[in-house]
C-alpha cells in the first residue's frame, strides 16, 4: 500500500505540488490525470525520490521512503517513462536484465527471468532477446520498457505517460495488455496521463490534479456522478459522461429476465459496447449469454439507458 501524506514540492516561490495526500491499495491502479503543468509527473517522481519533497512524506507498506537509501528504493520500484529510455547500446535481454544485474542476481536466474518476461509480453525470446532497441517498433519498445521495469518483481510500478508515444491503435492494445498483466501479477500501479479515456480504462481510482492541487481522488464512477469541482466535471467531459459511465459497467448490471431475438451479447461486455450493438442492429433488446455460452437473460435499450443517468 502506498500512502502519500501532505506531499509538497516548491521550487523557489512556485509550488508545483501542493499538499497532496492519497492512498493506493495493494494491487490497485491509481491514475493521476490533469492538464500539463498540473504537477502530475512531479508527484510521481517524488514517490521514487527522483524529486525530493519539500514537505510531507511517502509511505510504502508503512515504511517511510526517506528511510531507504534512494538507489535501493528505486530497485524496488518499477519505473516507465514516456519514450521508455531504453539503453541503445544494450540488447533487449540486457535492457530487461538491468535491475536484476544491479541487484547481483546470478546469471541463470537473470536469464530465466528475462525469458519469462519476454514470453509474458509476447516477444519471442529467440527473435527478440538479441535485438537492439533501434531494431524494434514503437509497440515493441514499449513492451520492453515495461518488462524492464518489472524485471526484479517490484510490488509497485510507476508509469509516466507510458503510452504517450504510441499511435492510437497500438495504444489501446497496449492498455489492454497492461491491464491483463497487472491483474495477473497483482502489481500496484501509479500511472500519470493527460488522456481521460486512458484514465477511465485503466484506473481503479483516478486522481485529478490542477495547478499543483489534488482536486478529487475517487473511483471513476464517483468522479462521473459526483464531481467535486467544476474543473473535474469539465475534464471528465460533460458530453461524454453517460457513455463513460456505461463503459464502466458490465451487462450483468442491466440483466433482465426473459429472451430476445438476435445474436447474443456476452455478460462480461460493457454496457457501452452492448448499447452500441443494440443501436447498430436496430433492436430494442438482445439475448445475453455467460462465459460458457448459456443463455442467462436479455438486455434492453431502456435498461441500459437507466444506468447512464445522473444519480441525482
Amino acid at each position, binding site marked *: 500500500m502506498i500512502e502519500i501524506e501532505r506531499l509538497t514540492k516548491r521550487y523557489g516561490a512556485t509550488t508545483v505540488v501542493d499538499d497532496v495526500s492519497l492512498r493506493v491499495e495493494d494491487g490497485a491502479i491509481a491514475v493521476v490525470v490533469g492538464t500539463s503543468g498540473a504537477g502530475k509527473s512531479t508527484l510521481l517522481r517524488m514517490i*521514487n525520490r*527522483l524529486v525530493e519533497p519539500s514537505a510531507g512524506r511517502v509511505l510504502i507498506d508503512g515504511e517511510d521512503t526517506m528511510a531507504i537509501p*534512494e*538507489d*535501493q*528504493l*528505486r*530497485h524496488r520500484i518499477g*519505473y516507465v*517513462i*514516456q*519514450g*521508455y*529510455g*531504453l*539503453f*541503445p*547500446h544494450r540488447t533487449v535481454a540486457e535492457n530487461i536484465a*538491468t*535491475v536484476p544485474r*544491479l541487484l547481483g542476481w546470478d546469471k541463470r536466474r537473470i536469464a530465466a527471468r528475462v525469458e519469462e518476461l519476454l514470453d509474458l509480453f509476447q516477444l519471442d525470446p529467440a527473435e527478440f532477446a538479441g535485438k*537492439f*532497441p*533501434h*531494431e524494434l517498433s514503437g509497440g515493441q519498445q514499449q513492451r520492453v520498457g515495461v518488462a*524492464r*521495469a518489472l524485471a526484479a518483481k517490484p510490488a509497485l510500478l*510507476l508509469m509516466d505517460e507510458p503510452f504517450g508515444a504510441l499511435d492510437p491503435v497500438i495504444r489501446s492494445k497496449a492498455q489492454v495488455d497492461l491491464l491483463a498483466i497487472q491483474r495477473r501479477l497483482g502489481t500496484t500501479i501509479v500511472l500519470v496521463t493527460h488522456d481521460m479515456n486512458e484514465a477511465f480504462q485503466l484506473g481503479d481510482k483516478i486522481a485529478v490534479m490542477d495547478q499543483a492541487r489534488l482536486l478529487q481522488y475517487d473511483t471513476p464512477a464517483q468522479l462521473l456522478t459526483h464531481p467535486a469541482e467544476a474543473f473535474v466535471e469539465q475534464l471528465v467531459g460533460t458530453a461524454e459522461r453517460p457513455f463513460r459511465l456505461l463503459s464502466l459497467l458490465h451487462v450483468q448490471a442491466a440483466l433482465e429476465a426473459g429472451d430476445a431475438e438476435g445474436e447474443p451479447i456476452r455478460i462480461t461486455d460493457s454496457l457501452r459496447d452492448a448499447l452500441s450493438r443494440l443501436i447498430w442492429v436496430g433492436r430494442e433488446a438482445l439475448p445475453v449469454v455467460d462465459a460458457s455460452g448459456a443463455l442467462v437473460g436479455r438486455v434492453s435499450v431502456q435498461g441500459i439507458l437507466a444506468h447512464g443517468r445522473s444519480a441525482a
Partner: protein
Amino acid sequence: MSRRSFILRAAALFLLVLFIAAPQLFAFAFKPLTINDAPAIYNQGSLLALTLSHLRIVFLATLASTVLAVGLGIFVTRPSGSEFLPLSRSLVNIGQTFPPIAVLAIAVPLVGFGEKPTFIALFLYGLLPIFENTLTGLMEVSPQTLEAAKGMGMNPRQRLLQVELPLAFPVILAGIRLSVIISLGTATIGSTVAAKGLGEVIIAGLQSNNVAFVLQGGLVVALLAVLIHDGLGLAERMAARRLGRPLDEIS
C-alpha cells in the same frame, strides 16, 4: 567499406611494410630524384627502427592526452565539476593554439633534448580534439536514457560506466583518431630536438638537398596516417552501428 577501397588499403599496407623492412628494393624508383650520385635510400639508420620509435612517441603522447582529456571531460560534465567547464575549455584551447614548434623551444631548456620535449608538444596539441569530443559524446546522451537509468536505481558511477561512457565511446574514439593523425605529422618536427623518428629522414634530406630522402620520410608518415585513420574509423563505425546510429553522424 567497398571491396575496391579495401583492396587499395591492403595494398598500401603491404607496400608500407615492404618498404620499411627492405627499402633497398625501391632504390630504382627514388634514384631519378637524386643528384650527384647521392644515395637513393636513407642510409643513416634503420627505417624500421625510426618508424617504430615514431609510432611509440605518438602512441604514448596520445595515451596521455586521452587519459587527461577524457578524465577532464568526465569531471566537468558531473554536477560537482560543471563550474570548471569554461576554465578547462580555455586551458585546452591554449594547448592547441601554441604551435608545437614553440612548445619545443620552451621545453628544451627545461627538460633537455630528446623525446621529452616532443612528448610534451604532442601531448598538449592532442588534448583539444579528445576533450571536445568527450564533452560532445557525454552531453549527447539522451536525457530520457539517463532518467531511466537513474529511475532504475543506478548510482552516479554505474550511470557513467554502464550508460554514459559506452554511449559516448564512438564520439570519443573519433576525437582520439583526430589527435593521432595530427600527432603523426607533428612528431616529425621532434627530430629537430633529437627525438628519434621519421622526421630524421626528412631533415637529413633537407640538409643534403636530397629530395629522395624527404619523399621517403614524408611517404611513410603519410601512409601510416592514412592506414591508422582508416583503422580507427572502422572501429568507430562498428561501435556506432551497435548503437543504431547512421554512419555519417560521426565523422
